[in-house]
C-alpha cells in the first residue's frame, strides 16, 4: 500500500481521531461486551482509518467516517466468530414497556423515575445479557444511538442503511431492549416485595 504519511497528515489525523475515541470505546464495549475486545477493535479501526485517511474528504463528518470503519470491522469479527446470542431471541414488545411493567409492580407510587431504579440496580453483566438478546443489527443501531446521541441520518451513514431502516430498527430495538432489561433484572435479582407480572418464565 502506498501510504507514506507526512508528519502533517499524522497530526491532522490525530487531531480528528482523539476526540472521538472515548465514544468509540464506549460503543465498542457494548458491541463486544469485553474491555479487551473493545480496546482491540478501537485500535484496529484507528489504524485502518489512518491507512485510509487519504480517502477522507476534509470538512466532512470525521466521526461518521471513522465509526463506519469501526462498525464494518465489528461485523467482520462477528462473521468470523459466529456469535450466538446469550439468551433466547425476543418477541416484539409493546410501546413504553418499562413504563407499563414498572407501573404494574407499583414502582410509580414511590419513585419519581422507576426506569432509573430498575437500571441502577442492574450489574454490568446483566446489562450485557440484556443487550445480547437483541438481533445484531438492532444492537448496533441502538448502541450507536444511546452512546453517541446522533441524528438518525448520521446513524444511517455509519451503518450503511437508509434512514427509514434506522428509524424502524431504533423504534423496535428500544422496545426490545426495555423488555429484555426488565426480564434480566427480574430473573437474577427479583425486585423483592414487588409482585412481578411478565409473561413467560425465563429458561
Amino acid at each position: 500500500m502506498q501510504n507514506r504519511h507526512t508528519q502533517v497528515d499524522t497530526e491532522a489525523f490525530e487531531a480528528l481521531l482523539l476526540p472521538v475515541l472515548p465514544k468509540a470505546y464506549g460503543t465498542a464495549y457494548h458491541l463486544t461486551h469485553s474491555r479487551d475486545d473493545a480496546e482491540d477493535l478501537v485500535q484496529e479501526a484507528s489504524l485502518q482509518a489512518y491507512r485510509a485517511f487519504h480517502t477522507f474528504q476534509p470538512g466532512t463528518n470525521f466521526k461518521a467516517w471513522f465509526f463506519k470503519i469501526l462498525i464494518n470491522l465489528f461485523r467482520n469479527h462477528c462473521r468470523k466468530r459466529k456469535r450466538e446470542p446469550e439468551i433466547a431471541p425476543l418477541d416484539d414488545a409493546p410501546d413504553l414497556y418499562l413504563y407499563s411493567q414498572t407501573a404494574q409492580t407499583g414502582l410509580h407510587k414511590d419513585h419519581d423515575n422507576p426506569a432509573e431504579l430498575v437500571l441502577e440496580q442492574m450489574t454490568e453483566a446483566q446489562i450485557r445479557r440484556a443487550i445480547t438478546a437483541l438481533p445484531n443489527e438492532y444492537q448496533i443501531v441502538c448502541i450507536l444511538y444511546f452512546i453517541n446521541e446522533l441524528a438518525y441520518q448520521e446513524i444511517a451513514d455509519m451503518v450503511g442503511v437508509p434512514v427509514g431502516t434506522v428509524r424502524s430498527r431504533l423504534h423496535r430495538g428500544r422496545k426490545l431492549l426495555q423488555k429484555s432489561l426488565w426480564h434480566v433484572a427480574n430473573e437474577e435479582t427479583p425486585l423483592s416485595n414487588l409482585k412481578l407480572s411478565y409473561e413467560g418464565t425465563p429458561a
Partner: protein
Amino acid sequence: MNPDERRYTCEETFRRLEDYVDRELSAEEMERVREHLKTCEGCAHEFHFHEQTLQSLRNRLQRIAMPPALLSRITQAIRQE
C-alpha cells in the same frame, strides 16, 4: 390558518412521540405535537416517561470510561505505521 384544524389526536401524537423525543419530525409536526402535549395531560405524562426512560438508559450505558492507556497505545501504533 386556524390552529384547531391542525390539532393532533392522542393517537396521532402517540405515534410521533419517539420521533418527537429524538427531534426527528418536521418543524410543523414538532409544533403540532408540542401543542397537543400542552393541553393533554395523558400524552404529556407518556412523553415525560418515555423521555426519562431513554435518558436513564443513556446514562447507564454511557458510564463506560475509556482506559487512559488506550490513547497512548493507539498514537504509538499510528507512529509505527
